């Protein structure tokens, strides 16, 4: 996963604000990275009980590769400086005891989201110049899904923010907004990490292009590397039993994950509503998401509640198991063109889980996105009700059959 960087011998240190057993994509991907590396690690994470459920099944991903896991009781939040700074300070202190002790880690991996992970890792890297640091960004931090500047204001008088600013100033690096914690996090990581991982080449181009400082752009050209999200081996798809037994006959289409303003299911539900009832009933659309009632309401309002099954999001291993029983798994691109973004830097992480499933993939894509280039069974344009309806009609008729892998 580290491109051409050869990690030194020895154990690693993983700094991941969220890590299993807390259920969150950020932690799951970090654990998958550990498994992908196959190296023993010690983990520093935050106690996420206030905002995240515990899913013990997630601990099986990294398994015994985690030799020690310290969960720091710092404030929990998404990206406020009030949560970033305490975690960074506590992680730095705890890491010091490991790095000064026997069998000290020789390399470090961190991943944002959450930004706190890379901020903490930056402080640790500053303390230990010899430590090889591989940092990852799941998405741009300082830009939102509409391409607008996203801010996480630093606290006035924050010692950590001052230290980050000093690191940048010492290197002669300028940032556009020194009060934006997201920008500080990105810039310091770009400056100090030995390798910066991006999940797709559009993200890399987008984040590089947003760099205010030319020297950082040059450095990213050297240390930036595209490494797709890892896919777990097939055994993980059989660790749990499917929680839903699918009725035989219909084609089962499923969507797993959260819904956003620019990544929703309205178009698909509209497409279902275009089918004749007898066609529609040859299909089922299962949605597992944080707010299933919204989907149920939207389906009822369109008169398609007879084939739409909405339910709360599943624990990860149950999701993998159930995905394996479906015929078609839907993944949708964010609609960024209508927001005026020059490229689509987002690649949904669920794609990596879908790729490991025996179900086929239906990608709803924006032209030029990373998702649009994946080899999938079915591809329709984003924001295109007509294309989705035609695809569904073919599925119902059996002319758009998607044989299982």
């Amino acid at each position, binding site marked *: 996963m580290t491109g051409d960087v050869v990690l030194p011998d020895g154990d690693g240190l993983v700094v991941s604000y969220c890590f299993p057993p807390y259920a969150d994509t950020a932690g799951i991907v970090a654990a998958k990275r550990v498994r992908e590396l196959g190296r023993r690690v010690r983990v520093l994470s935050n106690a996420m009980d206030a905002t995240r459920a515990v899913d013990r099944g997630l601990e099986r991903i990294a398994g015994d590769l985690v030799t020690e896991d310290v969960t720091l009781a710092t404030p929990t939040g998404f990206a406020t400086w009030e949560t970033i700074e305490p975690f960074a300070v506590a992680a730095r202190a705890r890491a010091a005891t490991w790095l000064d002790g026997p069998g000290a880690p020789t390399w470090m991996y961190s991943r944002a989201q959450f930004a706190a992970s890379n901020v903490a890792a930056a402080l640790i890297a500053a303390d230990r110049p010899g430590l090889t640091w591989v940092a990852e960004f799941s998405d741009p931090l300082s830009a939102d899904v509409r391409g607008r500047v996203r801010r996480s204001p630093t606290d006035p008088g924050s010692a950590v923010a001052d230290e980050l600013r000093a690191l940048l100033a010492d290197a002669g690096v300028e940032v556009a907004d020194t009060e934006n914690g997201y920008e500080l996090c990105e810039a310091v990581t770009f400056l100090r990490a030995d390798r910066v991982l991006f999940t797709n080449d559009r993200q890399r181009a987008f984040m590089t292009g947003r760099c205010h400082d030319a020297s950082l752009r040059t450095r990213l050209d050297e240390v930036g590397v595209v490494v797709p999200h890892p896919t777990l081996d097939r055994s993980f798809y059989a660790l749990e039993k499917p929680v839903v*037994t699918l009725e035989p006959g219909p084609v089962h289409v499923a969507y797993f994950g959260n819904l956003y303003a620019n990544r929703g299911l309205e178009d698909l539900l509209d497409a279902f509503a275009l089918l004749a009832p007898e*066609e529609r009933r040859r299909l089922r659309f299962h949605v597992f998401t944080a707010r299933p009632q919204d989907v149920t309401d939207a389906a*009822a309002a369109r008169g398609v509640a*007879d084939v739409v099954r909405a339910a709360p999001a599943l624990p990860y291993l149950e999701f993998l198991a159930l995905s394996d029983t479906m015929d078609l798994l839907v993944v949708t691109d964010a609609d960024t063109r209508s927001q005026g973004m020059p490229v689509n830097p987002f690649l949904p992480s669920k794609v990596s889980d879908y790729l490991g499933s025996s179900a086929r993939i239906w990608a709803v894509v924006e032209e030029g996105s990373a998702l649009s280039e994946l080899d999938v069974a079915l591809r329709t*344009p984003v924001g*295109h009700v*007509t294309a989705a309806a035609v695809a569904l009609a073919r599925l119902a008729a059996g002319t758009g059959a998607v044989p299982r892998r």
Partner: protein
Amino acid sequence: MVARPQDLDAHRLPLEILTTVGPAARLGDVELRTTTTASGSAFGREVRPLGLATGGVRRTVQRAASAVRGDRSRVLAAFADPAEFPPGERPASRPERTHYLALVADAEWPEDVAPANRAPLEVEGVATAGQRLRELASSRAGGRWKTLRGWIRRSPARLDEVLDGDEWPLLLDALGRDGVSFDLGDWRADAAWLATHERRDAALGLCEVARRTGAVGVGSIEHRVVEELVRVARAGAADTGTEALAHELSAAADTALDDGDAAHAVRLFALLLHLLFQRDLHVVSESSPLVERPDAWTAPLRTSAVRRRIIAADLRARPDAADATGGAQGLVFLAGSYPRFGVPVVRALTAAGLDPHVVDPGDEDAALRGISVDEGLLRVLAGVDPVPDSWPWLDAVRGAAAVFVEWADRAAPFAVAAASTDARVVLRVHSVDLLSAWLHLVDVDRVDELVVVSDAMVDVVVGVLGADVRPKVRVVPNVVAADQMARPKLPGAERTLAMVGWAQTVKDPLWAVEVLALLRAEDPAWRLLLVGADFPRTRVESDARYALAVRRRLLRPDVRDAVELTGWTSDVAGVLARAGYVLSTSRRESASLAVVEGMASGAVPVVRDWPVYARVDAARRALDARWVVSTPAEAAARVLAASQRLEEESRAAREWVASQAYAEDPADRYARLVRGEAE
């Protein structure tokens, strides 16, 4: 048992009224909740069980739903019960069962539903809407009209069908106590607003309520115009009655102006524009009276004193400046309501060294974007309201030595009225704004050059504006990057049709689908590429209806597996490489850029005789008569014939494009127009 979204929307008003007392209402032993979906366009009524007795309610609902199955007209709203998952398929983690309520119209209950089970639903059914209005009438004074108006504007339902005869006077009386009198300021204005915002049922309903209650203004010209707008929209055609009413309306507006009531005059004039230029008659139809009989159709405008006053608007000086016309310099380019069309023109002007300063009035004030009638802007042009201070773009126009107005849209009359008398003014009009109101509000005498993109459009513009404009009309064809389109055709192109930019009513993709169906009847290898974005979401009834018709047609088995919807693409050339034929099936085009690009790629053109402009023979004059057809059957025959000698036809198409002005650089021509140099 399900209801289609359109069924729900049709009954939205009574249901909204039903629950206006709060987000939830008790109904027997269940709670009735209002649910707003993510789209905000539909809604549901969810009944959550509050106790064991819900079984009875559920059975009632199920029996009622079962009884009315197959007869949707009797169902106000009926929702599936998603809790009724097939055994074993219900997610184990589902938090609770959810039941849905069926509302059935009064007296429609099947006999075998016990009265005890009917009563609560019946009570809360249609009759409750009146009850809620009574509550509104008896609520504390103030804000009642606003509340009711909100209901009316949100709902396409007909108010007259919601209310009992004795309920509306009750509310009228209450509104009167709020100081609301039913004169032009309220119901007629609202009815006009509804009628001109694609809410025709609601408009008619309001008219009907006014009629029944004897409200002021029944039978007035505004009332009759609203009813005529609805009638014309439904028929998709006007008649002599429409023209007579337009003349009467024009005269009424002028009378109001003579009486010193300019605001009233502008309101009536706005209605006149709505009547003459409603989109169902011109923009999306298959013929337009503006093309068929322009003299007669625009006569009420030509005689209008209100129009003369609007055209005479002089905006050259800022209100706070004595003389803003001195020292004019540079070229200002108005981007137009659809700025992408102006991009090649700006590029050409820049290449000619004119350094255009591009302004986008719609960016500064969204009201300035678009081509539909806007009464607020008419008030400004007529001097009823002042020019907003927040229009810096107008200052740029005032100070320019030359103004290029791209599109005869809402901003165009202002730009022409603000341009210095010394400035050269170039106005470029497109197919759709030739059929819109704003061109008629521009002081054409102040325009030096009127640019269209094809010969046939010269006839159209002269038809609607009069022969006097003929000397200043210039034809400058669109720019086609022919060399960028030329790529080798890919395997399969010999049986593939393409249509680029398809998802609009005016493009009439149904016509293309029928061509495909005919070809597939001969050979199932034929395919159709529909290139471009999908139909936009819209509340415009005619567009929504058309989109639904296309989508349903595409799902039918004879074409379903042979259509590829590419979505929007930046690589049109790449898509065209997959097509041997390019279709232009539009109801109206001035010179179809898409088909010319297709021809440049080597695709054989198959062009419908664009019906709106058939009278001026636009298709044949823009292209070549041998490619123009009148019916899908002729189109299919043309394709089949061409397929016998595809290489030769392909070459002919490319050569034709190369021989036309399309391939020429228009920079010099635009530069000469702006500079006032002889062509």
